[in-house]
């Protein structure tokens, strides 16, 4: 298992966590290269489908991160997002998605260190889960290959 390199899809809001990742770069804070970032205006934009889509396409992990509650650039986007996350997180855990595969965090644009710490931890936790075998679609239909 030691040579298993997980693939992780990350959804960051533009204003906070994407900014934290920018700042981590400026500060040259290294972390594992295992995730690919999809930039969203706000975690409020995160349709739960995207998380399911990532897993269905074989992502070994998903990481969602946005502004701390109260810091939303759009006043309340992350509050609405949080309720969806609560439900989706519970649903996936109940259905047997390993807790280590799906991660949520609030990281402000000033928290580069927290970004680095969470990034490392997310990769380690997903690595520990091993490859996503149970929540990936075996064969992608033609229409879905885009």
């Amino acid at each position: 298992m030691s040579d298993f390199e997980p693939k992780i899809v990350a959804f960051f809001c533009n204003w906070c966590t994407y900014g934290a990742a920018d700042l981590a770069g400026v500060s040259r804070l290294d972390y594992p290269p295992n995730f690919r970032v999809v930039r969203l205006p706000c975690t409020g934009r995160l349709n739960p489908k995207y998380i399911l889509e990532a897993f269905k396409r074989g992502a070994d992990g998903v990481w969602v991160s946005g502004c701390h509650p109260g810091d939303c650039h759009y006043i309340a986007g992350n509050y609405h997002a949080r309720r969806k996350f609560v439900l989706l997180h519970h649903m996936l855990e109940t259905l047997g998605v390993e807790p280590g595969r799906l991660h949520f965090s609030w990281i402000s644009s000033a928290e580069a260190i927290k970004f680095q710490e969470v990034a490392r931890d997310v990769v380690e936790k997903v690595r520990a889960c091993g490859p996503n075998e149970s929540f990936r679609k075996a064969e992608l239909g033609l229409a879905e290959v885009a």
Partner: protein
Amino acid sequence: MMSLEDLIKKIQEAAKRALKEGKAEVVLGYQAGTTPMAVAPLFARTEGDCDKLVWSNFAKTNLSTYLPELKDKKVAIIAKGCDARSAVGQVVEHQIPRENVYVIGVPCTGMVDLEALKSKEARPVAASDEDMATIKLRGDGWETNIAKEEILRRNCKTCICRTPKMADEVIGDEVPSMTPDDYADLKELAAKSPEEKMAYFKGMVKDCLRCYACRNACPLCYCPVCFVDETRPQWLGKSQDEMDTFVFHLLRGFHCAGRCTGCGACEAACPVGIKVREFNRIMEEEVQKDWNYIPGLDWEQKPPLTTYRPDDEADFIR
């Protein structure tokens, strides 16, 4: 307890009154079915129609499912607790105007689970009769009585709204609610390993035909385009691929979060007997636990995914 005959009489009276007083142009209720152990919906528009209204222990259909189509008319609905709750949901979700729906609430002691009944009496049934507590079946040279208590539908066993108090009028005697669902099975499941959980749920839906009968029966599935029919971009495969099917049930359950009133119409509609409501129950438990929210009890309530509290808890978010 009021007899079934008296209750039916009261229903017919209430229906006539609603038409006469202009509370409704149509009364939505049940009429006797053409086969044993079944009733059918009735759209009563005249006093004469109202005489056909019945009540039954087999009135499992959630009549509120018909309300959105009739939203431009004033409709009175003969509603058990779960039907009434769904109607509340439809009003809260702007599918029907509150002023166009008049709820005639019928206290309900639960409906029969046909599968359970079958397990008690598997022989072919020629005719059925019933009173409030007993189902009487007759076949070729045999007759048997079965206590309804023993063959209640699963959702009826934990019904918290046997008397729809939010109705515009309630006829019949109030019936105390049941002990609410304690989700013991889900709690037990939570202790299992992810592999076991996944296997359990995948096994549960493995026979799914993707016929969407569950969706069609649901009074709260009214989207003009359901996510399963989405084509641009097509997101969910339409075949019976294991993962697509699994995700269909997952997301259907998610979409019912904070909305499902546990009427059981979906399960009752499934041709292959999948316990599709399990996915809804997962959400139901969480919505109650986190936000103390039970759908369909209050005409003014705000569904949990349309609002938030700044101090909502979400410990898993770091």
